[in-house]
């Protein structure tokens, strides 16, 4: 399929935008990456995602698909030749979807709490919440990977994409707070998994370097502290 038939609207720092890009890479599908300018939303974005006005949006032909994990499932179904992204068995699929929902509903908000926590005690408590969540994911990893390197087993899959897209931001949080979140003592499996994930051919060109992401985080923090533009 011609490159211009598949577009991803997004921005390089966003973990959500990374997800469809990884999925398209797994399927060896060429696509055009249209980056939004930080601080403004393009006409195309507003037209393609009028409900939420958020990235990522996949535009396939003339059809927009929104919400990162929904896009990943769509990609898996449309380009259905191997490798598969979702597990083949309905119970394993439900388990992967459950944990993907957990990372979005619980883990990511708890990471954001570290940023907004006021004072040492609050920060320590917020960090503990994230670590506790990662310990749960360590257990899920042991069960889902079935001896393989990834949550998907031997191959990278849906839950690797869902959770792995946060690894860059986890590393930034570790850097800013001088703390280990993915820790050899508590989450040894995830430490190895994170390295394998970031080194994967479908991921490595899409995962931003920690230093670059850290610089962006500072820009983001400044922009949020400033009064909104009129």
């Amino acid at each position, binding site marked *: 399929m011609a490159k211009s038939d598949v577009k991803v609207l997004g921005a390089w720092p966003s973990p959500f935008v990374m997800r469809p890009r990884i999925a398209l890479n797994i399927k060896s599908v060429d696509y055009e990456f249209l980056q939004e300018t930080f601080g403004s939303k393009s006409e195309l974005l507003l037209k393609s995602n009028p409900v939420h006005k958020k990235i990522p949006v996949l535009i396939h032909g003339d059809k927009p698909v929104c919400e990162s994990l929904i896009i990943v499932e769509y990609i898996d179904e449309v380009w259905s030749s191997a490798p598969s992204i979702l597990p083949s068995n309905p*119970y394993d699929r439900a388990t992967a979807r459950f944990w993907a929902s957990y990372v979005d509903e619980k883990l990511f908000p708890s990471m954001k709490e570290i940023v907004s926590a006021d004072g040492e005690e609050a920060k320590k408590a917020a960090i503990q919440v994230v670590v506790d969540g990662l310990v749960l994911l360590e257990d899920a990893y042991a069960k889902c990977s079935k001896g393989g390197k990834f949550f998907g087993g031997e191959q990278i899959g849906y839950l690797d994409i869902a959770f792995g897209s946060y690894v860059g931001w986890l590393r930034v949080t570790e850097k800013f707070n001088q703390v280990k979140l993915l820790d050899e003592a508590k989450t040894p499996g995830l430490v190895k998994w994170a390295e394998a994930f970031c080194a994967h051919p479908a991921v490595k060109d899409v995962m931003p370097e920690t230093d670059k992401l850290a610089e962006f985080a500072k820009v983001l923090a400044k922009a949020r502290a400033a009064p909104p533009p009129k």
Partner: protein
Amino acid sequence: MSNLGEVVLLDCWVSPFCMRVKIALAEKGVEYEARAEDLFGGKSDLLLTSNPIYKKVPVLLHNGKPLCESTVIVGYIDETWSSPPLLPTSAYGRAQAHFWADFIDKKVFEASYKILTCKGEVPETAKKDFIEILKQLEGSLGEKDFFGGDSFGFLDIILIPLTSWFYPIEKFGGFEVKEECPKFSAWMNRCMQRENVANVLPDPEKVYEFVIMVRKMQGIE
């Protein structure tokens, strides 16, 4: 269609999320045992061990293996018992269905909660937001009989249980869905004509009494 083993649902009569699962199982003709959880008196050991992360209903146990999160469970039901299909057949149709299910989970519940937990008079903004959300859903429904098209399907199953809470919302909010969003109201009536829906959704008066009780417990009344 074969039951494919033992199916148990950890359930609560007033939970719209449990209703989703019950309607889906009924649509597929799956026999199951519903075990009522006493969410205030004390959750069962089975619930706590089957859903240690959230400790919430619904939990579906299929041959002893637990599944949690209502939308995930409905998806599992659709994939395991394939007839009749609940999700659209095209990948794009499925993406649309999941998109609106996500919208419903993010918006409808929160807007309902805001109205029902108000102390005193419900602010205009809360009412407006709620109605606006229903209007957006009306937009997605368009001229179709059901969100799934001609047939009742996944998205109808995800949404209709939340409407069992509309009676207390209307009473507290001081508005009527059938006046503000007649298309939405017509869709609700079409769904309620289906036996699998009517048998599962509770009496609105009972839901209202439940809300009053919880408000008292939380010191809102």
